[in-house]
């Protein structure tokens, strides 16, 4: 055993020298008149002083949040969503974190990056980790459809473009299948519930890159990121291709704005080549000169590194093109806007992007295009029809649902109002954010193109969100020089709390129908394991975990409230005779009818079919001799049509 010597030359083998007994005589002999352990306390004190006090507040907020989780009842959610079931401790935790962050921003000197990062990460965990912990299963019905595609690829090693649209844009699914395999997991069901936390953490890097490219004001950068997370209520960050494509899109724009900004404006003669009229070219150049007065010093990169970054951009866009249908178009519009307004110096980039998109659409997605190509013409160039199909008619909604819709609209209008006020305040300080305004407006023309199944409004809002948040944050911290006063701290804290409360209200507003119990998952698993291939599975609506198994393509899914993309459109179900006719007329080998708690919740929220009608239909199936109940648990009942040859 190694031995060491203490100050007196005595050998010892422990980690620390033995504490000497010091009498008055000893202290004279050794020259030390204080116990040795007192030297540790100044070191500990110095270490503690280096840790930001705000980190303690972050820990307190997280502990309070963790304490509140066990008091959230996710089985009895009302029309008003999860917020009605959240205990006070949850709101206190969120409020504490928000106040701590806003106070951190109000410091005269920049705090450490760790403190700022800890606040934002804690916010993400609280906002998005709550449901991942308290729910038994992943949220949203579409999550299960995506899991099914990933499972198909895991089982078959390839895609089949003739099955559905997902197999024609397989980037996300192939990546997920690879990740599932590398992680040694059986299915994405093991981790899909944590997708919201994962994607929001992933967005943080590119967001900071974007905001730092737009300003050197650290308060503005971090408050913009904070606003992003408290206003991104669209719910597109679940286990989905669009969430993945959105990350690539943010990274793409971050690299463009950081490394490929134009430093000099072109002369009028150069602009005249494509604007044709000289007066137009002169006015345009004046606008550009006004809108981009003094770009901040940009990072200098070597030509080889620049070439590598360009290659990375092409790769990112290739990934986007292979992953999602809508994101490439919006990104193309944003990049084209940046190139036209002389912000980005890669003039050929929009052409390359357009050709890559077209190539994928016409050649790789050819099977889908040949069978569904005309879906792109749905409401094409019909602005009013697109706007109409994108807005919820709150006169038909339940009181809770109407309240949630109103809060969502209010939150959006508040953000837009803050953004406009922020743009004005920054303008008065001499900061002209023309690129930011252009990027915020770039996705808006998509309203004219198509309604995207009624979701275009959410997608346009999502893609405009980073820019709106930047402008909104500019209202509170328009410039780098800033004085601490109650007049500036109070509004920041108030607006932060308001946005956080609004986010929780809207983001979890539809949880009554978005969460599925373990009993429903078990029933769905039973159904797909026992139903013979080729069967038709009839449901009231599609709010049920379905299509999540690798052989999902072997079944026909039918909802009495028709999804426009599914089969047998226009076939109306009014009673069990219609169900029987549907199964026998189209000669399905077997037919199942599924009733579940989540379908009833959706029916109650949407109001398309009434709950008494569903109960009556189920009762008639129970008493009918032609149908037999093959499975039931607390949340699900499954009936099967008795066919010839059934035992």
């Amino acid at each position, binding site marked *: 055993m190694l031995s060491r010597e203490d100050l007196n030359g005595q050998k010892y083998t422990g980690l620390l020298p033995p504490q000497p007994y010091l009498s008055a005589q000893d202290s004279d002999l050794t020259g030390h008149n204080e116990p040795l352990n007192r030297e540790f306390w100044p070191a500990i004190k110095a270490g503690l002083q280096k840790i930001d006090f705000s980190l303690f507040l972050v820990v307190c907020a997280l502990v309070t949040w963790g304490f509140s989780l066990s008091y959230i009842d996710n089985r009895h959610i009302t029309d008003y969503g999860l917020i009605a079931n959240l205990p006070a401790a949850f709101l206190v935790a969120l409020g504490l974190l928000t106040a701590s962050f806003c106070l951190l921003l109000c410091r005269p000197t920049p705090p450490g990056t760790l403190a700022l990062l800890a606040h934002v990460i804690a916010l993400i965990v609280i906002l998005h980790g709550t449901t991942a912990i308290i729910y038994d299963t992943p949220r949203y019905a579409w999550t299960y459809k995506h899991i099914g595609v990933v499972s198909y690829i895991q089982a078959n090693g390839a895609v089949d473009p003739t099955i559905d649209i997902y197999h024609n844009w397989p980037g996300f699914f192939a990546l997920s299948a690879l990740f599932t395999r590398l992680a040694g997991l059986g299915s994405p069901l093991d981790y899909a519930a944590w997708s919201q936390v994962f994607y929001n953490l992933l967005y943080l890097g590119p967001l900071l890159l974007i905001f730092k490219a737009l300003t050197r004001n650290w308060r503005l950068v971090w408050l913009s990121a904070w606003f992003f997370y408290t206003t991104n209520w669209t719910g597109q960050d679940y286990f989905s291709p669009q969430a993945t494509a959105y990350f690539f899109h943010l990274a793409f724009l971050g690299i463009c704005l950081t490394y490929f900004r134009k430093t000099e404006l072109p002369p009028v003669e150069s602009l005249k080549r494509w604007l044709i009229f000289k007066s137009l070219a002169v006015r345009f150049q004046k606008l550009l000169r006004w809108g981009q007065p003094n770009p901040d010093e940009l990072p200098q990169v070597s030509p080889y590194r620049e*070439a590598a970054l*360009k290659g990375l951009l092409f790769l990112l866009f290739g990934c986007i093109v292979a992953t999602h249908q809508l994101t490439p178009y919006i990104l193309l519009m944003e990049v084209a806007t940046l190139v036209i307004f002389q912000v980005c110096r*890669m003039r050929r980039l929009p052409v390359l992007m357009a*050709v*890559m998109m077209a190539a994928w659409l*016409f*050649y790789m997605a050819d099977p889908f295009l040949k069978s569904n*190509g005309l879906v792109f013409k749905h409401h094409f160039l019909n602005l009013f029809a697109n706007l109409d199909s994108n807005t919820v008619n709150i006169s038909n909604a339940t009181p809770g649902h109407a309240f949630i819709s109103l809060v969502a609209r209010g939150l959006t209008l508040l953000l837009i109002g803050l953004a406009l006020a922020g743009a004005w305040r920054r303008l008065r300080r001499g900061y002209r954010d023309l690129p930011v305004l252009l990027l915020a407006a770039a996705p808006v023309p998509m309203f004219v193109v198509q309604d995207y199944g009624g979701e275009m409004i959410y997608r346009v809002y999502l893609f405009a969100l980073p820019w709106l948040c930047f402008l909104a944050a500019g209202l509170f911290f328009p410039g780098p020089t800033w004085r601490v006063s109650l007049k500036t701290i109070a509004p920041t804290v108030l607006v932060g709390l308001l946005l956080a409360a609004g986010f929780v209200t809207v983001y979890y507003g539809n949880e009554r129908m978005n969460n599925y119990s373990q009993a429903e998952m078990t029933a769905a698993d039973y159904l797909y394991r026992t139903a013979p291939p080729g069967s038709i599975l009839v449901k009231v609506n599609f709010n049920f975990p379905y299509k999540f198994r690798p052989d999902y393509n072997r079944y026909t899914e039918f909802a009495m409230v028709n999804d426009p993309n599914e089969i047998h459109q226009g076939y109306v179900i009014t009673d069990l005779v219609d169900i029987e006719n549907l199964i026998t007329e189209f000669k399905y080998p077997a037919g199942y009818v599924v009733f579940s708690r989540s379908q009833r919740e959706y029916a109650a929220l949407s109001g398309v079919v009434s709950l008494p009608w569903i109960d009556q239909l189920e009762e008639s199936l129970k008493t009918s001799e032609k149908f037999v109940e093959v499975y039931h648990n607390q949340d699900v009942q499954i009936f099967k049509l008795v066919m010839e040859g059934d035992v």
Partner: protein
Amino acid sequence: MSAAREFFKKNLRINIRWRRSRFVMVLLGLAGLAGTALLMLTASWEQAGPVVVVAFIAALGLSELVSNLPGPGFKRVGNWLNRANIPLFILCAATLVYEVIAILTMPEK
């Protein structure tokens, strides 16, 4: 007089170089149109289309990558790629127009 002659000679040289480059561009453009005509005559859009589009993407991407790299070698490669982009752009545009027309004139299902 000699200064005027020198000035005239110098401008003529520049003028010839400019005219030559424009002439080459026109030739390349005509080559692209000729290729388009060939595709129309042989009705080989389905076979040649993907090749043309991929070639254009590769040429445009590569020319963008080498555009700022130092050295005469990269400059030469960049010049050739820029020249190749002209007929490829025309062919690619024609191919995509064909595909769009095919989609728009598809019979209703």
